[in-house]
């Protein structure tokens, strides 16, 4: 199921080299353009969704819904020069809908009261522990910054823009998050 070698090789840390033209091509119905966009951004979208929902099923749904929506809505795209911000807005809206649904099912119980996420299907133990630590021990901002940095290779500057945070905040949060992770992982024996 998991092919880490392949992932690492193709994990070409694509950052936001997405331009408006790509979105315009998608608006014209080009599946090739959509595929290119997917290749460039799906890891960011997934990482973002996972960091918000802490749940792989939700993150998968959000990834799928987001790209369907991008295709559907490309013609309405007007956030010139900020395609990533647009894409993240879509993903975030879907994530919020998940929360809304979950809250309904879950009455008033806080989402943070949910049981700790377990990623037993991640075969490599150290990878699993790192992921579980990030998901369960960090707060949402820390988690988002770390995941976007690690998984999608976004620069802190780009993350700051996408999350609408000052760059200094992102930088300091990022450094603090790394230290936190190191501390927790040490406790786990890593």
């Amino acid at each position: 199921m998991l092919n880490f070698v392949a992932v690492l090789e193709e994990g070409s840390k694509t950052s936001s080299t997405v331009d408006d033209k790509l979105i315009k091509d998608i608006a014209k119905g080009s599946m090739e353009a959509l595929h290119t966009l997917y290749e460039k951004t799906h890891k960011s979208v997934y990482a973002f969704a996972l960091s918000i929902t802490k749940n792989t099923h939700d993150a998968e749904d959000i990834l799928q819904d987001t790209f369907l929506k991008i295709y559907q809505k490309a013609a309405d795209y007007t956030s010139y020069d900020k395609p990533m911000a647009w894409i993240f807005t879509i993903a975030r809206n879907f994530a919020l809908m998940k929360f809304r649904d979950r809250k309904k099912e879950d009455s008033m119980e806080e989402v943070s009261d949910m049981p700790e996420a377990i990623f037993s299907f991640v075969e490599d133990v150290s990878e699993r522990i790192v992921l579980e630590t990030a998901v369960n021990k960090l707060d949402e901002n820390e988690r988002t910054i770390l995941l976007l940095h690690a998984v999608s290779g976004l620069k802190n500057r780009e993350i700051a823009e996408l999350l609408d945070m000052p760059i200094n905040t992102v930088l300091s949060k990022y450094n603090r998050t790394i230290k936190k992770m190191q501390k927790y992982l040490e406790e786990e024996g890593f």
Partner: protein
Amino acid sequence: MKREDIERKLDAAVSGMIPKDMFDRISENIVSANPESIERVVKKEKKKNFNIFSRSFMGVAAAACILLVSGIIGVPYYGNNFVPDSHVDIDVNPGVEIVTNKKNKVLNVQSTNKDGADVIDNMDLKNTELKVAVNALIGSMVQKGYIVNNNTGILVTVRNDNPEKANKVKEEILYDINFALYTNDVQANVMNQTFKNTADANKFARENNISIGKAVFVLNLAAKDSSLDAKELAKMKVTDIANLVAKKGIDIRDIVDYDDDDSIWENIADAIEDIDEDAGISMKDTADAGNKQIGIEAAKQIALADAKVALKDVTFIKAELDNEDGRAVYEIEFYSGNVEYDYDIDALSGEIISNDFDIEDYSIPAQSTAAPRQTEAAPAPIQSQTAAPTAAPTQSQTAAPTPAPTQPQTVAPTPAPIEAPTQPAAPSTISAERAKQIALSHAGVGGASFIKAELDTDDGVQVYEIEFKVGNVEYEYDINAISGEIISSKSEVDD
């Protein structure tokens, strides 16, 4: 562990979780949705062009009527719920006016022009809460292509003789509109104003066949910039006025409260929370306030608007009133193309409680689109065609807020069940055990207590319906019994 190692491991773990066939899944889903959306784009374009020229000739009678109503009945008659209190105009270019009583219950919704009538359609929004009406109206505007992303101005005017109350209603309505825009996934510039009824504006509105709200805005704007003519402005779409304002660099912040889109995200998060809380309160409220259900048609409208599909393109499978945990809920299910949508809509507030859609990767045979789906959970094949009988008994079981199921259930548009879908001569199905394994491995759990694992036929396709629980999380899977493919998956925390 070094920073690089942490990041590398995270990357490997997360990247490995993304299904390799995700893009294929996306593109499969797109193929069917595409022609429809193109058609919608075309429709929108048509409407846009149409809007600019042929407008504001209709609705004289309607506008005159409304003004008459506010003129004659607007006498304070304390304690009477039928006395109009606030008037809310929403102008996009379809113009609608909502008249509410002191408790913000909708007394009437009227169009102020022809497109407004199109927007209202057949929805019966009387006696609903203001936010329900707003949600339904905005939904309808989106669905009918009047509100297009980022390209639409919405002018909201609240009229009440009491300025404090006007402000209060304004706050509420802006919130409701932003929420409705959010749930419909569109963004628009919302401009708003409050004011007391004035004779001048009334007269101007009547003469120019526009809503009173637009009249005030236009008059204010013309007063602010002498190069503008109020009559000319009255003929323009709000969007075009907004463009003009932008072009001329007029600062309109003193004549309207401009609601910037920037903070929408935080607004939304708060909005969701508050709406949830409201929903709890409104349940109690409604019990004694004689509130009534929004009706199947309005519920369908809300679902269609949310799914962004047109009425003519869908086949309803189910549209019935049900009772879930003491809450009256419309269960709406329909097909559009090969997408099956499933909505639960609060019968009182019109709020979407849950929604879901599945995409079947085969084309539905023509004869079975009309045939009902097998019911999901109940082992007995009770079809959902008769909405009224199911609704009636459940009503009495729990403290349902509605006094009686007075809904016109007969309008349920579900086509008559022709015959059960033909059972295909099954080639070879995977075993239930195998289906369970597929579900477990997808859920990422080792073992679980199974609630259900049965073979069912869903529109002629054999499907294992698998349900299991791990801790307090309940999982539901539909798995294609031939290919082993996961058709749908859902998990929820059970408390």
